[in-house]
């Protein structure tokens, strides 16, 4: 059974969940898997609609992942009408906009009953500073349990309503979030003396520090 278009899903979800702010995130790649961005407050209700709606029945949440977007300057080519030498012409201009960074939790939903998909759901946080909160969808799909824990572990996104939000891959005492784009790896482990100059210099520094320490 073919899946509805993303516009149809959006229209029906908006009708079913009053107040939900849904936007379509276009995907320019040839596979054209567009996604729905949903506000954090209504994410649970929208997800429940997607799961229980008889036409969609997205009973299977395949993949949950986080994405980190840093603050960035986006440049976009915009066609602007302008007076050039007294004649109105369409001119391409590069428009620059500042984008505040944000974190994102992405859900790939499929239907095992109707064998279609994917519908991609995205929850975006307002900013990157702690605490960043989104709504946990684990009560709807158990498969999100470990994956949301992983997003929390590696990106520091807090999932409200998650039954057991602990670190999963890193150890409990670990402080930082290693998958964030601005993560700086600590200079606290030993390097093997490989031939690369930079690495060799660091290895030597560590060795010297250890000898002093001993």
């Amino acid at each position, binding site marked *: 059974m073919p899946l509805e278009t993303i516009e149809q899903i959006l229209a029906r979800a908006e009708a079913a969940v009053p107040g939900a702010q849904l936007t379509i995130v276009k*995907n*320019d*790649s*040839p*596979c054209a*898997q567009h996604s729905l961005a949903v506000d954090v407050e209504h994410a649970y209700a929208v997800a429940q609609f997607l799961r229980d709606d008889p036409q969609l029945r997205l*009973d*299977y*949440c*395949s*993949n949950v*992942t986080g*994405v980190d977007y840093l603050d960035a300057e986006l440049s976009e080519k915009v066609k602007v009408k302008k007076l050039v030498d007294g004649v109105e012409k369409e001119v391409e201009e590069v428009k620059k906009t500042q984008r505040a960074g944000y974190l994102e939790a*992405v859900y*790939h939903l499929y239907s*095992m009953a109707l*064998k279609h998909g*994917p519908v*991609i759901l995205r929850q975006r946080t307002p900013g990157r500073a702690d605490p960043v909160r989104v709504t946990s969808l684990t009560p709807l*799909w*158990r*498969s*999100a*349990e*470990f*994956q949301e824990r992983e997003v929390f572990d*590696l990106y520091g996104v807090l999932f409200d309503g998650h039954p057991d939000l602990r*670190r*999963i*891959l*890193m*150890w409990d005492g670990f402080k930082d979030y*290693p*998958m964030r784009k601005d993560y700086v790896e600590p200079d606290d482990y030993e390097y093997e003396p490989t031939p690369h100059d930079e690495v060799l210099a660091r290895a030597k520094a560590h060795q010297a520090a250890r000898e002093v320490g001993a």
Partner: protein
Amino acid sequence: MDAPANRTVQSVGQGREGELLEVAMGPQHPSTHGVFRMDVVLDGETVVKLKPVFGYLHRNHEKIAENTSYLGSMPYTDRLDYFCSLSNNWAYALSVEKLAGLQVPERAEYIRLITAELTRVLNHTCLVGFLLQDMGALGTPLMYAFREREKILDLIESLTGARMMCNYMRFGGCRCDLPAGWLDEAKKVVAEYPRFLDEFDKLLSGNEILMARTQGVGKLSAELAISAGITGPMLRASGVDYDLRKVDNYGIYSRYPFRVPLGDHGDVYDRYMIRMLEMRESLKLLEPALNDIPDGPVVDPKAKLRGFRPKPGEAYGRIESPKGELGFHLISDGSPNPYRYRVRPPSLINLTILEDMCLGQTIADAVITLGSVDIVLGEVDR
């Protein structure tokens, strides 16, 4: 010994004598298939709580991939599920092809199907061996399984140059063509393989001890399996007909008929039998594919090896790997490295319901339940 993990905890009420024992099984335990730990709370021999602990093999595969080129991640995918490197290669190549819109030549599609199905046979062969090892059938079944696995590994080595770390598929095709005489060798192995399966069935499938140990153990209902995102043979053992080879029709699977075996109890025995049956179906797929393979190029001439930069966008590609749905979610920002590279690891997600399956069972049953999930820690921890 003052190992903190092995301490006893205070007995809980419920009006009965005795105390609960908290045991850390793993990370160094032969039954955990690697560096996996289960924190188990036992009442006598019965499991009352089980928490899986991961991360001992964590190397942040995704971060490494985000700092290397698209091609540079290919050999790292071998190391996810190191029994099935060719399936991993395919899943990654498929996702990048979706992202960049590359076409795969006909011959390469055949090679992909052949190698992926060989890998499935190889993985299931190992799994039944390991599962029986977990049950206490020490040595014999595993050695028989490894003897057969060696034949497929020989094929894979003569094709890709490595037994396990194949690094064979490329975006838009495969790295190299089949060596001379390879197809005849493969046909021979495929023709002889059912004999091993018959022998293995005779050796074990009717074995009363095996049945007593596995039937009714580690049950998983279809509803819970779907909700928990269980995929692969685990899901089909619970009776859910969901095989990506049929659902997504990727590659050239739609050209050949094959059946998807389904279980109806969702217990360890069903999971064992599903694997035995899937191997037979894979061999049925392999026979015509090995005969029909056409001549031609093995890689899309438009696909660039160096300086590969897909246009900005994202793609989620998935295949039916022997362990379940292996997916790659890639986001490109137009640079030579992926902006986001995510692996959807079937082994990890299939462990979500490990506690549900083990509660109320004895610790020995927990071991075989874990064995029937079929995990590889390279993929669980990434």
